[in-house]
């Protein structure tokens, strides 16, 4: 068994950016790593009981769009009302068809496999987030506390 440690800082709150921290931490836990994920700023959206994560093509020229839409759809068109919901719907549909886990499922596996999920207390204050709206079993700490774990980690990622 490995005695490695993985520390991740999750800063983004969109559907696409939700995957790297949850995939890596759940897999690391399966490999026997001790794992902590520190959720800060928009990353705290990933700890909400009811996640309403979206994906946006706006400002993201690298995002492949269905039916070759990226070839003829003007960049500003991605800002139209309803585009975000449509892109999110299509992305989720594609993920399901390809057997990719939902973010909720990966997060549940993280909790089951004792990945330590940590909320940034400063962000909770900043955005007036209610702890009741976030999942149970979260520790709320600051940078100093996270660094005491990250300082000993074999891998530290900022996502």
């Amino acid at each position: 068994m490995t005695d490695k440690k993985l520390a991740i800082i999750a800063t983004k709150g969109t559907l696409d950016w939700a995957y790297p921290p949850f995939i890596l931490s759940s897999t690391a836990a399966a490999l026997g790593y001790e794992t902590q994920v520190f959720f800060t700023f928009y990353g705290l959206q990933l700890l909400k009981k009811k996640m309403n994560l979206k994906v946006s093509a706006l400002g993201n020229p690298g995002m492949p769009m269905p039916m070759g839409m990226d070839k003829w759809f003007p960049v500003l068109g991605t800002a139209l009302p309803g585009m975000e919901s449509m892109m999110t719907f299509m992305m989720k549909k594609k993920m399901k068809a390809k057997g990719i886990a939902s973010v909720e499922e990966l997060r549940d596996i993280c909790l089951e496999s004792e990945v330590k999920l940590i909320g940034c207390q400063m962000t909770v204050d900043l955005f007036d987030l209610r702890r009741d709206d976030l999942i149970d079993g979260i520790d709320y700490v600051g940078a100093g506390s996270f660094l005491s774990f990250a300082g000993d980690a074999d891998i530290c990622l900022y996502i």
Partner: protein
Amino acid sequence: MADQELDARGLNCPLPILRAKKVLNGMNSGQTLHIIATDPGSVKDFEAFAKQTGNELLESAEADGEFSFVLKKG
């Protein structure tokens, strides 16, 4: 015959590994787990999983687009 079977067909990374780990948790040391997957990435992933977790990869084979693995719990 393996002691346990896991059908991971249609599942994408990292689910085959995560499901396998879950089944292994409920098994005894020395018992074997047979996994069938369709994710091409799972070939290297199960090698790495075995190396890092101390579970032995007894078998890794491909036939008709399906990948078959046998893990022995360490």
